[in-house]
């Protein structure tokens, strides 16, 4: 069975939370991709960049353009509103994690 679509749906929420957790300090898109690669998490740029944009539109993330090494870079960081959302989502995630583990046990 192809789990691709199920994995995509599951990842969607996870990556949103991941960005909120990662972006306490401002980072630009490529930097986020590389940082995750170093931790063996491969993320498709075409998934990440629109997602960053949507989080920005929801005012969970803030952004600013900076010119570095003669290149424009868009830096994202979590907003104050985003921190509150993150707090709530982390609670949900921890509850879900605890619930799953109660069934499948910790390996």
């Amino acid at each position, binding site marked *: 069975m192809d789990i691709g679509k199920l994995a995509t749906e599951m990842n969607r929420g996870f990556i949103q939370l991941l960005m909120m957790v990662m972006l306490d300090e401002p980072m630009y*898109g*490529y930097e986020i991709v590389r940082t995750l690669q170093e931790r063996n998490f491969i993320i498709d*740029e*075409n998934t990440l*960049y629109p997602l960053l944009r*949507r989080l920005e539109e929801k005012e969970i993330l803030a952004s600013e353009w900076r010119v570095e090494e003669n*290149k424009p*870079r*868009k830096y994202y960081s979590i907003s104050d509103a985003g921190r509150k959302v993150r707090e709530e989502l982390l609670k949900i995630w921890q509850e879900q994690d605890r619930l799953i583990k109660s069934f499948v046990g910790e390996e």
Partner: protein
Amino acid sequence: MERLKKYLDNIRTFLPGRQPEKVDEILREIESHILERAEREHGEINDTSLAIVIKEYGSPEQVAARYYEDGPIIAPHLKNYLFMYTGIIFAIHIGLHLLSLIFGENGAIFRFSSTDLLGVLSQLPVTFIFDFGLVSLVLYFVTKAGATSRLPYFTWFLKNEKVPSLAQRIATLVASIVGVAITYLGFTYGPVYFVDGQMNTLAIAALDTMKYGLFLGFGILTISSIFNFINVFNYSRIVKIASDIAGLIFLLIVVSPDYSGRIADFLGISPESTGHPLLIGILVFITLVTIVELVIETIRFWASRIVASTNT
């Protein structure tokens, strides 16, 4: 860099329905990501490194589709196609209904369920919903398939569109008004000629049929004159579409069994004369010409919108 610009332009064509400044921002972000990756992964930004990164980044359609969150039933860039294709099929469908009325009970090929006016008119909304649904279904599958190809929108009709000058529009109006006058005199007095100031009636076979034909011409030309008048002041495709639709509605009314008898009474002609084969041939010809013109104008109207949405 030319390749990158072209790539971004292509993505822009698949991002309609968004505010221009937001589209600019999205394209700026994508440009920034591609430049960053080309330099970091290939050492420098040049045509070769950009070509590789662009290829890996994905097709413009796929990249653009990711910026629409809720997975639309029909991709936003296909919506103008929905209206254009529905318009084309609906125009042809009206034409077939009209032909079924013209042929009446003898219409073996164009036999629709109703051959009276009310029946046909009540079928038109159903026909429209059917056509709209059919096109929606096709575009739904196109969207689900990834919408990776652009559908035809017949730009040939736009390239070959000539907007008439004011003088030409006035000349068209004058010609149609003259036509109205001639056909009116024709079906009122019959075919006449003047010798030494004396009006003489021309004796011809199928006089009643000719009068009926002239009455049809009078109606069509009157409708044309009204829209030609509007066109003199405000020339637009929508006026031409309205003119064609009004012409078709007129034809639907006059050829329907409900009204052709009354018209025959009004003109003082025998009811049988309205079914003359030559008249049916002329009606079929007028119907086909009107339908073709309506289809072309519908294509032009929506194709111009598609072009506008891909150029902004």
